């Protein structure tokens, strides 16, 4: 599958060219996004994907039930490696979740015109990924039924949460971020829900979308207020996203363990989130493009822009890894140096090399314009990045905890069936939620694409 890019102008920039084909009038944009949902049934491909996703969602529910009923003993966690798959999954999913709002807000503030086609489903991705991420800290608790003790509520024990605990920071960060992202996503979608209300043919759809649109009319005064609110939210979203993933980084960095107690962790985690998030957005964009025939809306330039960001993120990640190794050596501490040496030569060395291959080497093929303009190589690189970033998160845990300060207590982590299920089944749950969402809600922001088309016409 190849994507043909428009010819570049003499200066080498393709910015002078329109992002959208000239045939994309306001009517065509509305039809292209709304009609597959409102006037056509779900195709066979969607139903097949949905069936697999449903199986995955059931598997996730079953695994959670198993962990809740039998306890965390069903996982591979041992007395040294007390964090295993749940925490690696938590960091991975919160990374994916952080990326959606970060991408949307950052691209809005930096006036990236190609944002209009990807921001909505990237934000949708955020909602589901953060919701799934929020399950894992609860799953990793020894007594998950008491997770609400993290909340300061009046209680007969007169106890209060320990505000200096990273678990409490996580609770507030995830909760705030999830609710913030819902508000950002819903406010951005209000005008499109009104379009659905006005275009729907069935009475039921008119009523449902009408209620969700809250009576939006699209008047100039409403647009003015909407823009003011939306840009302010974007300005708030960027520091919020950075703080949320920094807090996840602090879960590790605030400890005293070798390989974790590093000041680079917060920014390095934020870049990692953007890296894996863009990889997920590429995969979702490719799926939507194929499934809903969005070729005119998700153009080669969108994919090329995302490929360049993945490449840049890969370089920053490589630099971060190198900084970690250097700091390990430069600290002069045997535990730190030992942890770095263990990464390269220890029990999990093969996985570590696979991580470096996926995160550092594989994305380098995107230097070649011909490769980053082809969908299949770009999707394969994105899959590689997602795998590599999960390996990074699990190895941060395994390499440090398997080889702590006490030599006599060192233990290797062995994955159990419940661990594998906990690793793979959330993908099914995510796909289940995402597939439903793209069938009932606009996955591309119609009003922003039309505004972009208007601006292109004006210029």
């Amino acid at each position, binding site marked *: 599958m190849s994507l043909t890019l428009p010819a570049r102008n003499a200066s080498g920039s393709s910015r002078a060219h329109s992002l959208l084909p000239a045939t994309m009038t306001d009517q065509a944009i509305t039809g292209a996004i709304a009609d597959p949902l409102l006037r056509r049934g779900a195709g066979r491909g969607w139903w097949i994907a949905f069936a697999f996703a449903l199986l995955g969602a059931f598997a996730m529910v079953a695994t959670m039930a198993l962990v809740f009923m039998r306890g965390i003993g069903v996982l591979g966690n041992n007395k040294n490696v007390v964090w295993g798959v749940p925490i690696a999954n938590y960091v991975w999913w919160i990374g994916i979740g952080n990326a959606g709002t970060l991408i949307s807000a950052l691209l809005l503030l930096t006036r990236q015109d190609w944002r209009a086609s990807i921001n909505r489903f990237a934000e949708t991705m955020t909602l589901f990924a953060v919701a799934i991420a929020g399950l894992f800290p609860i799953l990793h608790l020894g007594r998950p039924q008491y997770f609400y003790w993290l909340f300061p509520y009046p209680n007969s024990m007169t106890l209060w949460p320990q505000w200096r605990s990273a678990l409490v920071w996580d609770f507030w960060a995830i909760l705030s971020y999830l609710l913030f992202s819902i508000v950002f996503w819903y406010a951005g979608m209000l005008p499109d829900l009104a379009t659905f209300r006005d275009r729907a043919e069935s009475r039921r759809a008119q009523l449902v979308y009408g209620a969700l649109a809250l009576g939006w009319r699209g008047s100039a005064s409403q647009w003015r207020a909407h823009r003011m*609110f939306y840009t302010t939210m974007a300005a708030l979203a960027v520091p919020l996203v950075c703080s949320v993933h920094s807090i996840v980084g602090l879960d590790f960095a605030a400890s005293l363990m070798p390989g974790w107690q590093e000041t680079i962790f917060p920014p390095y985690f934020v870049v990692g989130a953007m890296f894996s998030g863009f990889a997920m957005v590429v995969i979702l964009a490719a799926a939507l493009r194929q499934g809903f025939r969005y070729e005119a809306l998700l153009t080669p330039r969108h994919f090329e822009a995302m490929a360049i960001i993945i490449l840049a993120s890969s370089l920053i990640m490589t630099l971060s890894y190198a900084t970690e190794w250097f700091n390990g050596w430069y600290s002069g501490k045997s535990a730190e140096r030992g942890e770095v040496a263990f990464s390269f030569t220890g029990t999990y060395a093969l996985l570590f090399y696979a991580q470096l291959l996926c995160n550092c080497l594989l994305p380098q093929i995107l230097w070649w314009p011909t490769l980053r303009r082809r969908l299949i190589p770009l999707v394969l690189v994105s899959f590689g990045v997602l795998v590599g970033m999960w390996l990074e998160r699990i190895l941060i845990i395994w390499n440090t905890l398997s080889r702590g300060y006490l030599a006599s207590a060192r233990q290797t982590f062995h994955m159990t069936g419940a661990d594998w299920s906990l690793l793979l089944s959330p993908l099914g749950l995510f796909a289940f939620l995402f597939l439903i969402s793209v069938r009932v809600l606009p996955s591309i922001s119609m009003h922003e694409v039309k505004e972009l088309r208007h601006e292109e016409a004006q210029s």
Partner: protein
Amino acid sequence: MTRVVIAEFGTAHDQIEALRRLDAEGFEALDAMSPYRVAEVESYLPRPRLTIRPHMALAGFGIAAFAYGLQWFSAAIAYPINSGARPLNSWPVFLLVPFEVGILAAAIAGFVALLVSCGLPRLHHPLFAYPGIERASQDRFFVLIIPPSDAGSRLALERLLFGAAALSLGEAQT
């Protein structure tokens, strides 16, 4: 309820041009409707002061201060624990939660302020009864004008709007 003349246009360019001409001829445009934000029309329309950002700031800083106070009260007064000899009022760490919940509070307050500014939720609006208005959210552009009192001005208004490529003209309640 205000009675308005409502003109329909096929493009944003025609809508802007109509508003420009209305402004030049001294007619009073009340509002405009479009499927996306057309920034250019705003300079020809009334621009009431928006208080979304002050509300966001007030809620954000207020809730952040409350969250800090709650942490301080619980950790230093109600339930003091010596945790690794850290000070009871561990202020650098206590800034994390106020930052998160402060931004959340700003977002929620902003959303409420947005709804109030937009007059939402209002599931039914008299304008929704106007034929063809459903395309205002899809591909058509409308301008709402306060009707002139005398017949001569009314005729001039109609000429002006059709001259600016209006597709249709009518009256509606708002």
